């Protein structure tokens, strides 16, 4: 198996950002990959997820997903891709638990319900549906590294969003770290969805260097989450000149439309989604999906306020909706 220096740079940094990550050492990579020819097993479990992280993984430009699966890793279990179904599929992870190999990477997508195992089950053992919580704890025990793909498994994400009335979430959804109680093995790859480079790049770092990448305080790889969106934003020069967009479609910095780029560690403005567009570049602003408070941000929500002017709001015919919108505009929430 051979990998060129250029290919390696692409994997680790994405084409546009190849020069930006001095932490990655190129020397000896070829040999390291050859050593890894007995490919690292990867077990990918989907808990309370939307499969968005998996679909995003398929969007990997370079290397493409077929190359990753056939040359870099050994993807033993992945609900969306695997050929086996039913007990054939479940036997794979059941045996992985029983064999207690300790060199595999466990990837968890989606949060884990704690109020009742029935909120998310995966397979049957001895005639009983098995809660996904059991699989995650059992598999994590022997895993070399636990990778959380997406904000749901990293921090709770959408399933753990609070019900506004009581501050609880419907299923007691929790992040993997909260379930395991020990985060020393965990690498968080948040994002809703995460960029494929973040997931594949982190796995490649583990395989090639045999160590964890440098992590920040939320256990996210610094090479991807170290800088904020704002620092790398397409509209940074407009911000510096004080040009702010007032409504969707305006040129300028999107801060006044509720962009969360200043508080969000993420390199999308430079890396681009599927190589063509970014959240800020498309004029929508950052929704802060790689950060812990997503999507609640306290009482703020994803979008700070409706951008309609007072005149426009007054034109809303339904009095109830008009009042609700006015409340929101003044910084309140709908329930009070």
């Amino acid at each position, binding site marked *: 198996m051979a990998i060129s220096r250029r290919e390696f740079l692409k994997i680790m940094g994405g084409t546009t950002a190849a020069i930006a990550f001095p932490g990655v050492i190129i020397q000896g990579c070829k040999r390291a990959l050859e050593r890894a020819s*007995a490919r690292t097993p990867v077990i990918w479990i989907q808990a*309370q997820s*939307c*499969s*968005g*992280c*998996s*679909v*995003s993984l*398929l*969007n990997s*430009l370079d290397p493409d997903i077929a190359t990753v699966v*056939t040359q870099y890793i*050994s993807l*033993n*279990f*992945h*609900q*969306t*891709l*695997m*050929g*086996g*179904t*039913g007990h*054939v*599929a479940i*036997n*794979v992870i059941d045996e992985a638990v029983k064999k207690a190999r300790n060199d595999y990477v466990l990837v968890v997508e989606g949060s884990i319900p704690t109020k009742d195992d029935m909120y998310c*089950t*995966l*397979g049957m053992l001895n005639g009983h549906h098995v809660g996904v919580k059991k699989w995650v704890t059992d598999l994590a025990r022997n895993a070399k590294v636990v990778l959380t793909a997406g904000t749901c498994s990293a921090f709770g994400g*959408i399933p753990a*969003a609070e019900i506004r009335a009581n501050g609880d*979430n*419907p*299923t007691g959804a929790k992040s993997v770290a909260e379930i395991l109680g020990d985060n020393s093995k965990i690498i968080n790859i948040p994002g809703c*969805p995460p960029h494929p480079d973040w997931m594949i790049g982190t796995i490649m770092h583990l395989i090639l260097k045999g160590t964890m990448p440098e992590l920040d305080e939320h256990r996210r790889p610094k090479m991807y989450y170290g800088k904020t969106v704002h620092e790398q934003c397409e509209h940074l020069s407009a911000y510096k000149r004080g040009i702010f967009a007032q409504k*969707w479609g305006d040129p300028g910095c999107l801060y006044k439309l509720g962009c969360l780029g200043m508080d969000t560690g993420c390199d*999308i403005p430079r890396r681009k*989604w*599927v*190589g063509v*567009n*970014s*959240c800020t*570049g*498309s*004029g*929508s602003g950052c*929704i802060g999906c790689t950060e812990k408070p997503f*999507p609640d941000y306290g009482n703020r*929500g*994803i*979008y700070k*306020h409706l951008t*309609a002017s007072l005149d426009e709001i007054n034109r*809303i015919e339904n009095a109830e909706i008009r009042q609700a919108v006015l409340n929101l505009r003044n910084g309140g*929430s*709908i329930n009070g």
Partner: protein
Amino acid sequence: MARVYLDPITRIEGHLSIEIEVQNGRVTDAWSKGDMFRGFEKILKGRNPVDANQITQRICGVCPVSHGLASSKCLDSAFKIRPNKNGRLLRNLVLGANFLQSHIIHFYHLCALDYVDIKAILEYNGSDDKLLSVRDWVKNEVQIKANRPDAITAAGPFLPRYEGNDFYIKDKNLNWTAIAHYLQAFDIRMKAHKMVATFGGRAPHLIGLVPGGVTQVPTGAKIREYKKNLREVEKHLGVSYPTARARFTALLDRLGLTASGDDEPRPLTREQVLAGVASGELGPQDAAALLASLEE
């Protein structure tokens, strides 16, 4: 009486299990069960309505555009906003691109492995580089597994699978072609996602949808990017829109349902209205109104 459980059903979006009751070799009853609950309705209650189009998209990572668009349209009508032309066109382009993406992933990557025999690749003797490397990969994997009793699976995620004589396609050539297309389709599906991201901001889970339209102004470069990818998807799938449309029309004709020339429903003829009254499908007042509109 025997019970058969298929849990989990893989290669779908989401979590599903099937329970089948079998008696004397015949299925007598069956149940399907969604294995996952998140409570979106409860989560959405009491939030800023504009957040809804971001939250509802997380229902499904394969078809987020449909959910996001439905939510945006609800907000449009709640706020009594009519999307402008730019918003309407870009929303449709994004939705169309995601249809393409959705159908490709469904047919090639989710369904195909139920029919295609991946092991047929072991006998491949053609000259396609990609297929040869897949053949070598499967061979190596199977050998590695023979030498390592602690291996979890070989040639994952494609193996293991249900084995049996009647499970998979037997024609070798068809299997090889199907495997080649399976691999190609990864690239084509990604191109469809490029189209989504070009006007939607990102894919999956659009960021560009807002009540009233989209956040983006189309530029020449973006339109070219969209067109370029559309052409490549079209080339690989071998169907252009007019071809697809002609095929559907032919199909409808054969079924005895003549397709109308445009997308608008045709007004009923006088005879059809009278027949409707006779069969009780139309009330007398409705029929009178329809006839009056015909005479105008």
